[in-house]
């Protein structure tokens, strides 16, 4: 009869996991030791990078035997470039512009609500703003994706709501909240004397806001608003996780179509990075310059 430890024979205590951990044993390699996970968890970020790089090189060496070289990968990239740019990156730009448009318009309304003389409206708008400002964008995207119907029926008309439109709505929410804060901050930064002067000239509150206060806020709002546009543009690849065919999704599809060679990864994703950099860097520079210009003039 076969002996089974702990059942029909004396329980064996040879396994390290069953023994109280002995300090001197941890450093010795043993199939059941937890030292590997411990070592992994204690890795610094730099070491992680080195590790990933090593994995990259080793796998590349392994595939090198299949005769697919980096040159082949770059050639593939050049073939895909126009497609990635036109069908992918321009779509990201389109999404960012639509999100900014919707987010700005709704954000202005929400921001003005935050400075309303009606307490309930002020509190409501404040709560909405804080909620969407402090929510992770990806989670918001998922919620909108799942919560929105794929088609809406209005007066018997069936209007389809494609995924990309849901993504636009999802990204508009945090932009709306941040524009709301920009508007509120800019309005309260105008000295109270401006309100009083307008009031004493028989301006109504609404007139004061539109004719006196907001024109002064406009300049102050531009740099932070542009800053959020740049952040938003860089966040648009999030939509690829939800299946929207943006530049990141298409880059992934392209590498798969080319046979999934690891050599493809670096050129393709570097290209995507460079596209975003070329688009966003001038915006960041311009924002900086406007900020400086407006701060001098006051």
């Amino acid at each position, binding site marked *: 009869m076969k002996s089974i430890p702990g059942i029909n024979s004396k329980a064996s205590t040879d396994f390290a996991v069953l023994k109280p951990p002995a300090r001197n044993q941890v450093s010795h390699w043993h199939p059941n030791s937890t030292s590997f996970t411990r070592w992994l968890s204690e890795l610094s970020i730099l070491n992680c990078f080195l590790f990933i790089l090593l994995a990259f090189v080793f796998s590349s060496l392994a595939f090198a035997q299949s005769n697919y070289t980096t040159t082949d990968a770059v050639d593939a990239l050049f073939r895909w470039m126009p497609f990635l740019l036109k069908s992918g990156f321009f779509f990201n730009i389109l999404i960012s512009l639509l999100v900014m448009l919707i987010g700005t318009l709704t954000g202005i309304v929400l921001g003005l609500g935050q400075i309303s003389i009606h307490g309930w409206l002020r509190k409501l708008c404040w709560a909405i703003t804080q909620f969407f400002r402090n929510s992770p964008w990806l989670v918001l995207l998922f919620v909108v994706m799942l919560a929105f119907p794929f088609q809406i029926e209005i007066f018997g008309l069936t209007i389809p709501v494609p995924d990309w439109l849901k993504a636009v709505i999802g990204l508009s929410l945090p932009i709306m909240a941040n524009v709301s804060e920009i508007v509120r901050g800019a309005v309260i930064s105008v000295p109270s004397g401006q309100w009083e002067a307008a*009031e004493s000239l*028989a301006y109504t509150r609404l007139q004061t806001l539109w004719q006196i206060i907001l024109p002064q806020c406009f300049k102050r709002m531009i740099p932070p608003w542009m800053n959020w546009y740049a952040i938003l543009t860089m966040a648009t690849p999030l939509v690829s996780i939800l299946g929207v065919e943006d530049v990141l999704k298409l880059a992934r599809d392209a590498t798969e179509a080319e046979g999934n060679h690891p050599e493809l990864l670096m050129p393709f994703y570097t290209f995507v990075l460079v596209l975003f950099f070329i688009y966003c860097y001038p915006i960041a520079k311009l924002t900086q310059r406007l900020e400086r210009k407006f701060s001098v003039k006051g």
Partner: protein
Amino acid sequence: MMSWTEDQPMVSIKDVHKSFGDLEVLKGVSMDIMKGQVICIIGPSGSGKSTLIRCVNALNDIQQGSILVEGQEVNDPDLDKLELRKKVGMVFQQYNLFPHKTALQNVMMAPIQVLKQDKAEIEKQAYELLKKVRLEGKENSYPGELSGGQQQRVAIARSLAMNPDIMLFDEVTAALDPETVKEVLVTIKQLAEEGMTCILVTHEMGFAREVADMIYFTDRGVIVESGPPATFFDEAKDPRTKEFLSQIL
């Protein structure tokens, strides 16, 4: 309001009480201002003088008492504040010009946007007003390009453009350099001589003595003493007035 005639006080303040939270800043203030009179309110800081004139054009509300402006009750929840403010002009210590508009635009804005007057006519009037406050040639300057005294004179012109019956001046020279104080006071004096009803809160005793018809001395929310300048400055009776004047003069 319909029944008001020029032989009645233009501004009639009766037993006005005003608190900010628990702090009572006006504790029963009364005064009458006739058409064409110039009133100076003086007193130590924190005595409620600025608050009092801000109540006249309803920038601050009052808790008790009555303020009649040309027969119109200010302490009334149904008060048409805009109508009141069209009659009562106000100039502030910090000028409060609109920084994104030129001097000329500052003067023209309210008549065009609030009174809906004809733009060409207003422009002509605005040039004249700026000339009156001796700012010819500064029409297209922005407030940031003007000195304090010049800005304050634009602010006066801006108020006058609304064609008010009464002007309120809230320590309008307090933020100015001593050299530019005079140019603003000359402008106010000119207005007073033209018969404008003026209520001034001021620390300029020499000016008050020269221009005012009546002086009111306030301290801790009440009027301690009042009278025409000659009597007030030379024959002050209350010890608090005497002490204040001895520190200033």
